[in-house]
């Protein structure tokens, strides 16, 4: 193995669990890896520290490996992933003041559409919603949900970025009307009586990878055995989590990891339609999902023309490396790299080869 001590970054959330459990339950040690986990305050920090080598690997939002590689955000850094850390765990929460404005029995989206029109006619400022990062699944989930009801997320509302751990305080302060974020920050708002989750991320678009293990392409090329051992350790941790949800919640709720009440964290790990860590090929880095993410970036004007989508996705989502590590553990995995996504709503065959303008 090339490098045996690694520094890995994470942003405190329930779905940091694979990294935390791998450390606390000895799955890294089992693979002869010594890992220091570094708690980071922002996704920008994760990207920048990975870029300059202050981190060897990191928990990342799935779209970030693409935006970093293409230089769509503020820094171009060629990234890749060979493993998703989880699926699900996001939800959209609306604050009580907004929920109270809905009529008895009125469905949420039509109600929002009505309130937006009424506010505009009255000359009031638009409702403000928050998500966690421009290149995040949360951004795309919120936009999909709103636009599905005819609400234009760029014109009809104000969309801002707020870090996950600060969502609840912004909702309490009334500076935002609602948000899309990962657990435990939806459950916490509900437990504090500040708002209610109206839909989960999986109800909007199911079967999608959420966080991934992100690395620099040059680091992965120089450390193939360390990388493979890292994937083995995290796959073992993910399998363990699926069968030990309550104990996982207790491990993650330690103050050095996630500062939120244990009951809220436990509920998040036990929720139906919530976090998946291994079952259903949750760790497989489907290239069809990479293409879908690019299609979302394009739809919301983050991705310009002149990019070879398929070449980018093949370089960034390394299904081959996943299969190698999974076979070390005797796990079966998908033989295809692509599949129909979103319950039939996205067919990767619709994306042509070559540069797309």
């Amino acid at each position: 193995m090339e490098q045996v001590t690694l520094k890995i970054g994470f942003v405190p959330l329930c779905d940091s669990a694979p990294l935390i459990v791998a450390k606390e339950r000895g799955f890294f040690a089992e693979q002869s890896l010594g890992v220091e986990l570094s708690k980071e305050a922002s996704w920008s920090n994760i990207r920048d520290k990975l870029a300059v080598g202050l981190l060897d690997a990191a928990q990342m939002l799935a779209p970030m490996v693409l935006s970093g590689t293409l230089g769509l955000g503020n820094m171009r850094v060629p990234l890749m992933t060979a493993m998703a850390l989880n699926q699900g765990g996001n939800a959209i929460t609306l604050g009580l003041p907004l929920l109270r404005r809905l009529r008895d029995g009125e469905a949420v989206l039509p109600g929002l559409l009505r309130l937006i029109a009424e506010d505009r006619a009255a000359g009031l400022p638009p409702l403000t919603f928050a998500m966690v990062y421009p290149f995040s699944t949360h951004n795309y989930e919120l936009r999909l949900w709103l636009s599905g009801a005819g609400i234009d997320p760029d014109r009809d509302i104000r969309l801002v970025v707020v870090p996950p751990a600060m969502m609840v305080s912004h909702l309490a302060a009334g500076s935002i009307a609602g948000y899309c974020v990962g657990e435990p920050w939806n459950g916490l708002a509900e437990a504090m009586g500040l708002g209610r989750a109206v839909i989960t991320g999986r109800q909007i678009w199911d079967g999608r990878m959420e966080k991934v293990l992100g690395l620099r392409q040059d680091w992965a090329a120089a450390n193939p055995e360390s990388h493979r051992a890292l994937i083995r350790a995290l796959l073992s941790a993910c399998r363990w989590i699926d069968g030990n949800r309550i104990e996982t919640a207790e491990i993650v709720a330690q103050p050095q990891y996630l500062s939120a009440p244990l009951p809220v964290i436990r509920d998040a790990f036990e929720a139906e339609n919530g976090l998946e860590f291994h079952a259903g090929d949750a760790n497989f880095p489907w290239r069809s999902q990479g293409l879908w993410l690019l299609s979302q970036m394009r739809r919301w004007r983050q991705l310009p023309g002149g990019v070879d989508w398929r070449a980018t996705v093949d370089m960034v989502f390394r299904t081959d490396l996943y299969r190698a590590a999974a076979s070390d553990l005797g796990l079966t995995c998908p033989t295809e790299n692509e599949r129909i996504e979103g319950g039939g709503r996205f067919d990767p065959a619709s994306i042509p080869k070559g540069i797309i303008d």
Partner: protein
Amino acid sequence: MSLRIILVDDEPQRTALLSDALMAHGFTVVAVFPTGADLPRQIAALQADVIVADLDSPDRDTLESMRQVTFEQARPVVMFAQDGNPETIRAAIEAGVSAYVVDGLKPERVRPVLDVAIARFAQFQELRSELDKARSTLAERKLVERAKGILMKRRGFGEDEAYKLMRKMAMDQKARLVDIANKIIEAAELLG
């Protein structure tokens, strides 16, 4: 015209250090905010050109989102990395500084701001680690004194004797003196 700068940092001593240095270089520090200020509005209201933020500020993700121009925001803000010098970026990240500039500003105008910030952040890091070291040395010395006192009282040792015994225990056990002192204190508390 002098560049207008906003500082985003929860460390008041560091912002004071950096503010003074930037003013001395002829820049205008228009505001200092702790984490959680509504930066998109503040940047527009204060007509700021440059935002210098603690790298560990959670507000960085909010600053990142200002790259896109939205309907209410006329001035897109980008991270200062466009002079393409990876050494500068590395130095900034290692010192714990991030800088964002209003799109269109010439890199050579902004570069001195970043240089001053990197230098002051690095200076502060050094000051703090010296202070931490001094504090922990003092704390350790107090523990050693306490353990020495326990040995003198309970075992009737003289001060020198007590100290020598602790040093020998530390050497034999390949431990630090303060760890031995801790063990003695713990044992004494246990025995009451």
